[in-house]
C-alpha cells in the first residue's frame, strides 16, 4: 500500500482481471470515514469487453445486485465502494476483493452464452427494434389454442414477422414445424431465425432450417449488426 494524494492510499494486491491487470483498490477518507473504492475502474474495465453492467437488465443485473448486497458494497453511479466499519480494514478489504472477483466473473457468464441470458438478450433486442409490435411466446389463437406451435417473437405487421431464438437442434426443428403450421393455416408471413451459436447446430438441421426459415443470423451479435439493415431493406419495420 502506498500513499498517492491526501488521505488516498493505493492498495496493490495480487488479485485482478482475466487479462492480467490488477484490480484498482484505493483506500480513501471522506466525511463518513474511511472506505475502499475502485474509483469506477471495475465497470470501465468490463466495458472493454462489451460487458455494460450499468445498462444490463434481467438475470445479469440481478447477479450484480446480489453481489453488492452480499458484500455491503455501494454502487455510486458506477463507483464501487465499501465502508470500513469499526476499523476492520482487513475484513472490508477481503470482502471488497471477493466482490470484485465475483463481478469480474460476470464476464465469464457472458462468454458461456448461458441460454437464459441469450433469451433475455434476444427479447430485449427485439423490443428495442420492434417495440410494442412484439408478442413473445405467441401462439395462433384460432388454430392453435393449446399453444403447440410457439413463436418466440411475433411481430404484428401487415405481413406478420415470426422470429425464433434458436438455441439448439430441437428449437430449430420447432421453428420449422411452426413455420409449416402457419403456412398450412394460410398465413403469408416472413420469418427470421437467430441462432445462439449456429456452429452448435447439426449440419442436417441447419440445412432444413435454411429451407423453411426465410432469414437467419448466426449469432445475436450478428443479428444486432445486420438486422436493422435487413428489416429496412425488406420494409419490415
Amino acid at each position, binding site marked *: 500500500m502506498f500513499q498517492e494524494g491526501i488521505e488516498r492510499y493505493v492498495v496493490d494486491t495480487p488479485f485482478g482481471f482475466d487479462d*492480467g491487470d490488477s484490480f484498482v483498490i484505493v483506500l480513501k477518507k471522506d466525511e463518513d470515514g474511511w472506505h475502499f473504492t475502485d474509483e469506477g475502474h471495475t465497470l*470501465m474495465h468490463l466495458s472493454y469487453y462489451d460487458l455494460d453492467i*450499468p445498462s444490463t437488465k434481467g438475470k445479469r443485473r440481478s447477479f450484480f445486485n446480489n453481489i453488492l448486497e452480499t458484500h455491503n458494497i455501494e454502487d455510486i453511479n458506477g463507483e464501487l465502494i465499501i465502508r470500513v466499519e469499526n476499523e476492520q480494514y482487513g475484513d472490508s478489504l477481503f470482502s471488497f476483493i471477493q466482490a470484485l472477483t465475483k463481478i469480474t466473473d460476470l464476464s465469464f457468464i457472458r462468454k458461456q452464452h448461458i441460454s437464459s441470458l441469450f433469451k433475455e438478450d434476444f427479447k430485449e433486442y427485439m423490443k428495442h427494434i420492434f417495440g410494442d409490435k412484439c408478442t413473445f411466446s405467441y401462439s395462433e389463437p384460432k388454430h392453435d389454442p393449446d399453444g403447440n406451435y410457439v413463436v418466440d417473437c411475433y411481430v404484428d405487421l401487415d405481413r406478420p414477422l415470426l422470429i425464433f431464438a434458436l438455441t439448439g437442434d430441437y428449437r430449430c426443428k420447432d421453428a420449422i414445424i411452426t413455420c409449416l403450421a402457419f403456412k398450412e393455416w394460410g398465413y403469408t408471413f416472413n420469418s427470421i431465425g437467430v441462432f445462439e451459436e449456429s456452429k452448435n447446430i447439426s449440419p442436417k438441421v441447419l440445412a432444413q432450417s435454411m429451407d423453411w426459415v426465410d432469414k437467419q443470423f448466426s449469432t445475436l451479435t450478428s443479428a444486432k449488426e445486420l438486422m436493422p439493415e435487413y428489416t429496412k431493406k425488406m420494409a419490415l419495420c
Partner: protein
Amino acid sequence: MKKGRQYKEYDLPLTSSNGNKFQVRIRVNDNNPFDFSVILMYQEPQSKYWYILRRYNGKNHTHKNKIEKERILGYHIHKATERYQLRGYNIDGYAEEASTYSNWHDALSVMLYDCNIKIEGKTIYDY
C-alpha cells in the same frame, strides 16, 4: 457520459481498405486521468467476434504477464499473441511496459502510428 458510469467512452468503427472491420475504443476514467485505455479491436468476419489486438493502458494499476510471470508497474501496452490464446488465456493477456505516452491523447497517437492507421482526408480527431 452516460448515467451509472464514472468514465467517458468513445467507440469509432473503422473499415480497412480491404474491407476488414476494426474499432477504436477509448475509455477514460473521470476520477483519475491516469486510468484510461485506448483499444484497437478487430472483428472476425465469420463469427462476428471482436478481438482486442492492442490496448494502450494508463498507469493506475499493475499488470502481470501470466506466462512470463513478470509484473509491470506503470503505463503498458497489451498485445494480442497466439501463445496466450493457445494456452487459454485472454488473447490480450500479454503486455509490455510503455514510455511513449503519458495521457490518453498521446496513447491514441502512438497507437495510430504503431498500427499504421491512416484515415484518408481526415484525422481521427475529426470524428
